């Protein structure tokens, strides 16, 4: 079996020790870090994302796969940074103020990292000001907001408004999602995009960042 396919399979199976060992082995063998990331770890995570999307696998499988992906990524990160490889874009994500639900948001973070984006995860219960400030100082191109409660959804509007007041609309784009959030709602509050699930959020972010 191809050495990179073996890494992908370890991610798909959620075996983090194996994913780390195999990643270290191919690093030692001199394979380019970017190739290991793209054709090993991310290739595996893509399969996981697709199987999750069609309900073949569920949250526990995705979380275990993510652990395996991160185990490999931790080894690659210093090499990628030393090699001056730039990420596909910097994304700030968080669950909005007053909302403690972060499973969906975490899933989006996993998928975005799996797709090669640099993700700054601010966690849950994040104030709108902090989202905007972090995106500004970090030079992020997208703020991804999650809300699981109908009562916390309106906080998303505050982020959109803050960006407009700071004349950052268009420079920093907004993506919203979460169980009660709809495309119509996204349009209503003036958000740039809506992601109906974690896999879709990645596609949308790619569009927003103009990458394939």
């Amino acid at each position: 079996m191809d050495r990179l396919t073996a890494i992908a399979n370890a991610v798909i199976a959620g075996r983090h020790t194996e994913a780390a060992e195999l990643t270290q082995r191919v690093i030692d063998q001199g394979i380019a870090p970017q190739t290991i990331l793209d054709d090993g770890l991310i290739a595996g995570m893509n399969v996981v994302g697709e199987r999750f999307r069609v309900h073949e696998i569920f949250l526990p499988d995705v979380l275990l796969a993510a652990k395996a992906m991160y185990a490999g990524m931790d080894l690659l990160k210093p090499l990628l940074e030393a090699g001056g490889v730039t990420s596909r874009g910097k994304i700030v994500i968080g669950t909005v103020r007053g909302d403690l639900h972060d499973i969906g948001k975490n899933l989006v973070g996993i998928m975005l990292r799996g797709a090669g984006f640099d993700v700054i995860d601010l966690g849950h219960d994040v104030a709108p000001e902090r989202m905007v400030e972090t995106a500004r100082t970090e030079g992020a191109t997208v703020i991804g907001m999650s809300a699981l409660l109908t009562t916390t959804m309106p906080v998303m509007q505050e982020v959109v408004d803050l960006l407009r007041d700071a004349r950052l609309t268009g420079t920093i784009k907004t993506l919203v999602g979460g169980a009660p959030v709809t495309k119509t709602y996204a349009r209503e509050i003036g958000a740039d995009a809506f992601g109906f699930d974690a896999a879709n959020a990645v596609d949308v972010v790619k569009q927003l960042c103009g990458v394939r």
Partner: protein
Amino acid sequence: MRPFLDRITAGEVLVGDGAMGTMLLERVLRPGESPESATCAHTDVLADIAERYVEAGADLIESNTFGASPLKLALAKLDDDVAAVNRDAVRIARNAARSRAHVVASVGPSGRLLQPYGDTAADDMQRSFHTQLEYLIAEGVDAIFVETMVDLAEATLVIRAAKDIDAAIPIAAMMTFDPTPRGFYTVMGVTVAAAAAGLAEAGADLVGSNCGNGVEQMIGIATEFRQHTELPLVMQPNAGLPQTRTGRVVYDETPEMLASRAQELLDIGVSVIGGCCGTTPDHIRALRRMIDGHSPRRQ
């Protein structure tokens, strides 16, 4: 009033209560505030909501303790007084029930994920539920309603903790399913068949589903449960799925819609029918009327 389980075994159909969280949000909670914060801060409002459900004909009133396990309260920074949050909520429900309705303790998810996919050890989660359940059972609740579970392992921890404290306490265990093209699954991948078997194995006296769906989907879920278990069933649908209209959240299913479709739940043989998010005293009144008309109540 006869004991809760005796009434179920005798074939009576009981009406549950309706939403607590959405009612509180309309009246006193600020966006994102935890419903448990209302127990001490808005005792009068909680008492009023419970009273309205009893007046509407609910046979049981649930305590406002869905998120009152120490782990969950810690997320909302309300864990300084786990005892008071649980005890006071049961007392409010009991004062409203005044022997007209059973007092049932609601226990929801911990808000944490179990190892190995999450970061919480099973022992820690079990201890958290055990602590909550000790307060609830010491208050003399008539039953425990385990609600909105998505992980069978977590639901099992709650049931075992309750049985450990009081082997005779009636337990109704409910999970929340999503319709997928491949059938009903919880977000953690639990099927109705697996839930029916696993919850029964852990010691649940009733099994079923709440939240996540309107009555339409609940009919499908109840049908599947019936195929997989002999245990009495409990179903508590939402008033449909939440919709947003110009920033306001509304639930579409009217009391009449709920009551007319809920007849099918009776045909399937569901023993407890109540409401979850978006249901109101009017929904419960409509259910009461429908059930009384369907088969005379046996006291």
